[in-house]
């Protein structure tokens, strides 16, 4: 894992891309250079003591040419509210890249990537990185789930990569009506050569549980990106634990946020 860096990154852009969902572009070349898909930034949303703690947000896009980095976040509380009010030109205090990201697939593997809701954010960078490695389109399929059409994002970006992208919405306003895990079920039924498959997922906990069950049932390796409340974000406070299938706990910030499905207990 690469050494994290503290940076006062300049905000290049910060705009609403869907209701309450923002994309922020940051200039932080040293972090951009090192970042792997699935890693995150730990962001200080305020200059004051309120909110006190940093907020973890995944790295969603990397522009190697400009050295810029994109994050996509949903405004859910005080921290993200303050974040979305920041103007281009101002600076934001970030630490990154943090955590263990998604292990990239071997060349002969076929990747199925599942993203749900705001969990689609890190999926974008992951898909791009895999697409760069594997020139054969069919080696990646991305399955996205959103509550409704309005909240969808990232689809154009994925299509511009030439990656096969299938969308589900809970209410059927876009694509398939249902969950992205339904799409995963269907996909796996259609493909017989699943021995060379690898699954990546990021999204709400119940989605990850379902992915774990499906992957486990078929003996497909699956990598899941988890969330937990964090204080330090770097492994020092032991505050972000998730139950291990072994004894004890793992740290989401340092051992994860991406775990091999078998490592962690999601119940």
């Amino acid at each position: 894992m690469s050494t994290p860096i503290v940076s006062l990154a300049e905000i290049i852009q910060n705009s609403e891309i869907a209701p309450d969902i923002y994309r922020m572009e940051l200039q932080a070349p040293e972090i951009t250079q090192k970042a792997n898909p699935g890693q995150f930034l730990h962001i200080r949303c305020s200059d004051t003591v309120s909110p006190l703690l940093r907020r973890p947000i995944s790295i969603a896009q990397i522009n190697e040419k400009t050295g810029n980095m994109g994050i996509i976040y949903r405004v859910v509380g005080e921290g993200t509210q303050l974040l979305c009010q920041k103007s281009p030109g101002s600076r934001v205090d970030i630490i990154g890249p943090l955590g263990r990201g998604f292990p990239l697939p071997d060349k002969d593997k076929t990747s199925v990537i599942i993203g749900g809701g705001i969990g689609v954010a890190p999926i974008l960078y992951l898909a791009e990185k895999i697409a760069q490695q594997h020139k054969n389109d069919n080696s990646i399929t991305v399955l996205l789930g959103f509550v409704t059409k309005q909240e969808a994002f990232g689809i154009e970006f994925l299509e511009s990569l030439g990656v096969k992208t299938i969308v589900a919405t809970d209410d059927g306003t876009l694509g398939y009506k249902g969950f992205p895990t339904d799409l995963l079920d269907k996909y796996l039924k259609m493909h017989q050569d699943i021995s060379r498959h690898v699954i990546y997922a990021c999204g709400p906990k119940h989605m990850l549980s379902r992915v774990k069950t499906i992957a486990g049932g078929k003996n497909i390796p699956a990598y899941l990106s988890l969330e937990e409340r964090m204080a330090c974000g770097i492994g020092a406070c032991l505050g972000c634990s998730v139950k291990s299938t072994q004894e004890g706990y793992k740290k989401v910030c340092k051992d994860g946020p991406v775990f091999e499905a078998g490592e962690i207990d999601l119940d």
Partner: protein
Amino acid sequence: MNIDMDISVDIAGIVMKNPIMVASGTFGFGREYSDFYDINKLGALVTKGLTLLPKHGNPPPRTYETPAGMLNSVGLENPGVEKFIEKEWPHLSKLTTPIIANIDGDTVEDYQKIAKWLSTLENLAALEVNISCPNVEKGGLAFGQDPESAFQVIKAVREATNLPIIAKLSPNVTHIQTIAKATESAGADAISLINTLLGMAIDIHNHQPIFRRTFAGLSGPAVKPVALRMVWEVYEAVSVPIIAMGGITTWQDAAEFILAGASAVAVGTANFINPRAPIEIIEGLKTYLCLKEQNLQQLIGSAHGGRHLTY
């Protein structure tokens, strides 16, 4: 300005190049923050709390943000003394900054056993005896809320080791001076305070406490005024040196605690917000002393200025 000025301090034989330490449980075993600066620049490093046997800690969630503070219910997750010595001590012992082991027990005997075991380590600078952890089933806080049991624990550790002993006190008491005096008379060489304030939070959607153990420990800037008051009180009650902690985030905070009577201060929760906080505090304090044309010793407790507790 001479910012190479000497701000070293000797606390009960622990020779520190500056009075800025890091607080137990907020700095792991020193690995993580090494990514951000040379941790040998710290006055001293206090380890995560150690218990005799390994502890898995409490189920999640373990942290929760509160106004200008945070609650934690880590529950002393630690590898236990044996694994600590095997896995963490080799790299800790290579540091030039003094290492202080924070220890915790379910029983007085536990404390004694850990103390004996750790006393075998060459170069360990001191033991910080945590009689104030609110996040465990047995022992912990209860020892620190009663002068008699506080005395017993420290006395037992005193008999078990020749290392300097720092008694770490709980703020969740009526009379902090009584507890402080009890630990002093039991043989503590220094006193550190405060551990976390007992607090809680409730999820108003599912009607349940956020934490499985209901209560958790409050730390961060929110608690600073309470910590400062307790340091002030303890300074007037004991003659051993005081190590202060509780919400210290800036050099100005550190200066307040030193004026209140602390010989050294520890940075805890602030590490999480600003990994370089301890270094910035060291620099700020040097500049402050330079401008005041005072040395550290003159500053310690100087806000008391002969006055005594009016309360």
